[in-house]
């Protein structure tokens, strides 16, 4: 049973560019959440998708947007990249009310 799959694993982008990160949830999970983890810090909640809609959002600007597809997979888009967006981006899938499974993350470096 595959767990949470994220792609790509590493990415280098230039300031001002746009990036799309992808996540396939664990089989049977219907909810996908995205977290940003800057170096030396705990993960920060970006947003959560359920039934193809954004259900909750953390304290992140509108440059961060997402999407969930009918097969429950999800994308995280970040526009107008800043140096401060450099981080490990983690996807977590779950069933509402149950535990989480985290993916291995995408390491984004903005130069």
């Amino acid at each position, binding site marked *: 049973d595959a767990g949470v799959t994220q792609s790509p694993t590493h990415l280098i982008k230039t300031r001002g560019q746009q990036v799309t990160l992808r996540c396939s949830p664990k089989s049977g999970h219907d909810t996908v959440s995205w977290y940003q983890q800057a170096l030396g810090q*705990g*993960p920060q*909640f970006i947003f959560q998708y359920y039934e193809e809609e954004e259900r909750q959002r953390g304290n992140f600007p509108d440059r961060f947007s997402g999407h969930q597809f009918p097969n429950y997979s999800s994308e995280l888009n970040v526009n107008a990249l800043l140096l401060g967006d450099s981080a490990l981006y*983690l996807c*977590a899938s779950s069933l509402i009310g149950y*535990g989480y*499974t985290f*993916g291995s993350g995408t390491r984004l470096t903005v130069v």
Partner: protein
Amino acid sequence: ELKVEQNPLFLSMQEGKNYTIYCNYSTTSDRLYWYRQDPGKSLESLFVLLSNGAVKQEGRLMASLDTKARLSTLHITAAVHDLSATYFCAVGFSATNKLIFGTGTLLAVQP
């Protein structure tokens, strides 16, 4: 705003010694999670604590929860080098599936 604080932030300990990591949170929650993270890696789930007085143990790690004090502890018994990692607590809410992470505790076990 919910705050989750861990202490200590950094812990250097000798093999064979015991120590406790503390996790304090500022608002009522119905579940508390502990995760382990190795450098550059994703989050590994250790424990989920669902009720006041809950205690769970796995190997040399034992976690407990006091919901009245809004405090969880992760106790390490007879530390070994393989336990070296960063440990995070996270407060969860069953209605929303959103996690708020603590600041993390970097544990270094010296031979």
